[in-house]
């Protein structure tokens, strides 16, 4: 019994059907608790006023936007190396979710920027590299749509994801070199060891982050199932319509 067994579409569908109810429930609970707590149950920041409440959307979304790309990278590698279809389809399924997260982070950031920095948008390294990430999502999704043959599409998008990752990192570095920004630094403990956000803000934020993560997972599982079914329909029809 190895993990790879779940690379079989049928096995995967079975497992994902069993896990999904819990996942959806957990995601719904965490997201709503985190957001409600953050929205209703936290005080205003002395400097940022009530805008600090945006953090419960902005940071989890930004986090998941990056993690989603990372997950797609891993899935693409698995497809390229071991050629498990579920893996490729999972990457395909994750892309729109990741892009949505990116858009949420961008929009909430822009809305937050207006009161804090006095501008909707600034060419700050953090913001800019995020915008580039958005472009990579866009290109990735467009490539999936444009290629007819599913396997070729999986191959091409995987390579694009790989090369894109390298260039995304490179862009991030280049952008930082090009401009020193005003976006604030990392405030989450995993990255810094200590934290710069007070506990009152931190716990709801943590719940919200977990919630976004679970939501992402649930969505990806569900959407992968959808892709598998579409692929099966296509396979059945293709084999039927071949003769004559």
């Amino acid at each position, binding site marked *: 019994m190895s993990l790879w067994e779940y690379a*079989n*579409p049928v096995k995967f569908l079975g497992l994902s059907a069993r896990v999904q109810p819990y996942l959806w429930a957990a995601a719904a609970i965490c997201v709503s608790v985190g957001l409600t707590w953050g929205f209703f149950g936290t005080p205003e920041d002395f400097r940022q006023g009530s805008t600090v409440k945006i953090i419960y959307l902005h940071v989890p979304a930004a986090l998941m936007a990056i993690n989603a790309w990372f997950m797609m990278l891993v899935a693409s590698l698995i497809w390229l190396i071991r050629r498990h*279809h579920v893996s490729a389809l999972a990457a395909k399924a994750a892309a729109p979710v990741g892009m949505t997260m990116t858009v949420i982070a961008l929009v909430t950031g822009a809305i937050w920027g207006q009161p804090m920095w006095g501008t909707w948008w600034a060419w700050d390294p953090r913001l800019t590299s995020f915008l580039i990430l958005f472009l990579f999502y866009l290109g990735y999704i467009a490539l999936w749509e444009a290629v*007819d*043959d*599913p*396997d070729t599409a999986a191959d091409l998008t995987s390579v694009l994801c790989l090369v894109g990752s390298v260039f995304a990192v490179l862009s991030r570095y280049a952008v930082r070199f090009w401009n020193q920004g005003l976006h604030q630094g990392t405030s989450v403990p995993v990255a810094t060891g200590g934290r710069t956000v007070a506990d009152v803000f931190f716990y709801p934020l943590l719940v919200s982050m977990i919630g976004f993560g679970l939501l992402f997972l649930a969505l990806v599982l569900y959407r992968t199932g959808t892709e*598998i079914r579409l*692929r*099966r329909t*296509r*396979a*059945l029809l*293709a*084999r*039927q319509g*071949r*003769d*004559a």
Partner: protein
Amino acid sequence: MTLSLRDLAVARGGVPVLSGVSFDVAPGTALILRGPNGAGKTTLLRTIAGLQAPLSGQITGAEDTIAYAGHADGLKAMLNVAENLTFWAEVFGRKDISEAIETYQLEPLRDRLAGTLSAGQKRRLGLARLMVTGRPIWVLDEPTVSLDAEAVGMFARAVTRHLAGGGLALIATHIDLGIAAQTFDITPFRAMPDDRSGASDEAFL
């Protein structure tokens, strides 16, 4: 060097098209592939030429020995006949294009841009390309499309000469070419809808 297929299965668009195909073509002989439209001749030939991977089965003797001519001729409209041939000769590390020009009577067209040739003249040039590759195995997909009777004769002579020189040829066609060769009908090898010979979509069936 013999070209051998053993229990080959091929797919197009992820769907198995043929399975269980086996045959040998010995040097000095040609094999004519037959089958109705959509039977899978093009797919089979592309697989043998190495342009796509087989689903399963073995192909031996095909490594770096094949000159392939498909529906498209790989001609540049803005190069003339001689330049087109010279280019392909050089890609295959050769120089001489006079034999090809002569066999297909391209001399009068030598300096015409390929884009201004008629359909049949273009095809003649496309076939002439095979001769400059120096490859022993010719894999041809409907080579005589839009050729007139005389040009079909040129082609038949070129193939016969190639075979006499120890080459071999595999030709898919719907019409009679006037070449002494065995025929292989691929119709019986059509893959069944639930065929599981390694196609990429079989996990989804």
